[in-house]
């Protein structure tokens, strides 16, 4: 059994490590205990700015700091970042200021808090913004590594983390993590599953089930949704001839949308998208939510069988 940890913990640990850089500052909107920026705040209160429950202000305080040479990391729940979307658009992305926004508790996996807290559109909306890098890592190790790469990015970013613990896949594989580069977790040539976040684990489970049925699929962790690793997408479209995407996010505009938009112009192949089917969630446990939304490994297995049947 691998180690279990939440991606938000990886974010909090990374901020602490980044504190050696005197230009790194942390912005909070009364959810530091949840997003895990609290560790930085405790160690470096002088470089932590409480913005109260005011996300719109927080984003632009970040912009002002970034324009003054600082590297601000702002976090709140994924859903509440959306309230400051226009600030992100006009005040951060447009002048290309390196403000790093983290939205924790993303997706329906957030669970019992219910639909108001389950952001299923964050990846889609931030992906539409020029200059913004969009990430959704699947484990705490990759979250930590990706976060620590952000000060060198020189442009704004949005990273979604998750509330609940999931298996850690990257212990000992830290050097494979690079912003903008997908990771082939399991190779195969019957179909390629591109997944992000919690659904990477469901995809790995699906691959095991499929193996027992004689179907050999590749599983690729697309922790960066933008810029999309188009070389890897093209390579596996050609190699496997069928693609499945899997994300705890609306099927509209997220990872599935990004890959479909790309391959339609390069190497179109049969494709199935696993995601939230244009509906809101409700209060239920994480596992119940994944089942209800059609995001479990057995849903992925069915999608793989269906897409392989469409290969000519």
């Amino acid at each position, binding site marked *: 059994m691998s180690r279990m940890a939440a991606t938000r913990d990886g974010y909090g640990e990374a901020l602490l490590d980044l504190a050696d850089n005197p230009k790194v500052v942390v912005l909070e909107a009364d959810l530091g205990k949840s997003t895990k920026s609290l560790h930085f705040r405790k160690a470096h209160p002088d470089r932590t700015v409480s913005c109260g429950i005011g996300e719109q202000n927080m984003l632009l305080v970040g912009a*002002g700091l970034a324009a003054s040479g600082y590297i601000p990391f702002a976090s709140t729940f994924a859903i509440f970042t959306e309230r400051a979307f226009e600030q992100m658009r006009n005040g951060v992305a447009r002048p290309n200021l390196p403000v790093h926004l983290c939205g924790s508790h993303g997706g329906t996996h957030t669970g019992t808090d219910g639909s108001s807290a389950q952001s299923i559109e964050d990846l889609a909306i931030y992906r539409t913004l020029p200059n913004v890098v969009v990430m959704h890592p699947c484990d705490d190790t990759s979250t930590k590594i990706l976060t620590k790469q952000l000060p060198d990015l020189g442009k704004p970013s949005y990273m979604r983390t998750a509330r609940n613990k999931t298996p850690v896949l990257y212990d000992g594989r830290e050097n494979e993590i690079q912003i903008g580069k997908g990771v082939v977790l399991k190779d195969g040539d019957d179909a390629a599953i591109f997944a992000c976040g919690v659904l990477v684990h469901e995809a790995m489970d699906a691959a095991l089930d499929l193996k027992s049925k004689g179907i050999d699929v590749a599983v690729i962790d697309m922790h960066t949704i933008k810029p999309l690793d188009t070389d890897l997408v093209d390579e596996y479209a050609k190699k496997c001839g069928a693609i499945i995407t899997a994300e705890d996010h609306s099927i509209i505009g997220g990872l599935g949308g990004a890959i479909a938009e790309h391959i339609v112009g390069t190497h179109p192949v049969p494709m199935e998208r696993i995601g939230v089917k244009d509906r809101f969630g409700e209060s239920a446990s994480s596992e119940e939510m994944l089942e209800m939304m059609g995001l479990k490994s057995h849903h992925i297995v069915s999608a793989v069988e269906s897409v392989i049947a469409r290969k000519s």
Partner: protein
Amino acid sequence: MTSKSIAELEEMARKCRIEICKMTHRAQAGHPGGSLSEIDILAALYGGRLNVNPDDPDWSDRDRFILSKGHASPGMYAVLAEAGFISKDDLKSYRVKGGVCQGHVDMKWCPGVDFSAGSLGMGLSFGMGCAVAAKLEGSERTIFVMVGDGEIQEGSVWEAAMASAHHELGNLKLFVDCNRIQNDDFCENQMRMFDIPAKWRSFGWAVKEIDGHNMEEIVSSIEWMDSITGKPSVVIANTVKGKGVSFMEDNPGFHGAAPNDEQLDIALRELGVEV
């Protein structure tokens, strides 16, 4: 920058008013009313108070001026030309493809512009970030922000107001250009704001009211702001939209409309230009 006398600042503002009329006329678009209401304050700031350098506009320890009401860009461009950040010729690029004078002020396009505005309610938050940065660095630089009175209907302004006072940002100074008119009509008809000074006072700010077209009052209000430490300060400047051009004054029709040829002639004559 060397400080100018009151008469020199008034003359600087007059020249800027002429350029505001010419720019909006040339573009047949833009926002003359709010540019004319703000311009005396901008002249006072760029005429000597701001520690900025037109030869090095990105100097990191400069004072900042953040025009949050970014549509009133002709006023900003006119004063930047007077201060030597851009040329008089650059003013012809207002709203023209490839021009440094974009429709709304933009830090990526125009030297001397500290914030890319255009969406109301954002500049004070950005200014707060700049003020926090200056404090972290131990710098004495000052952050000035200007918002419009209509603009403070945006809720985000009050997030910034509360947070700036909470963080005791004495290096943050705000002007509210109270010209009493917004896009569609008089503020009074669109959204009454009741006692504006009392609102800022209750948010923990030091507050002063002035006549925003009286240069002596403007200059002394800046000195008053500079004397305030430990809390942010705001000057509520009572102004007249379209100030200096008779048919634009107090006229909601000139919030976002350009003068035609005939109107430009009248405006320039009123501003002391021989046409």
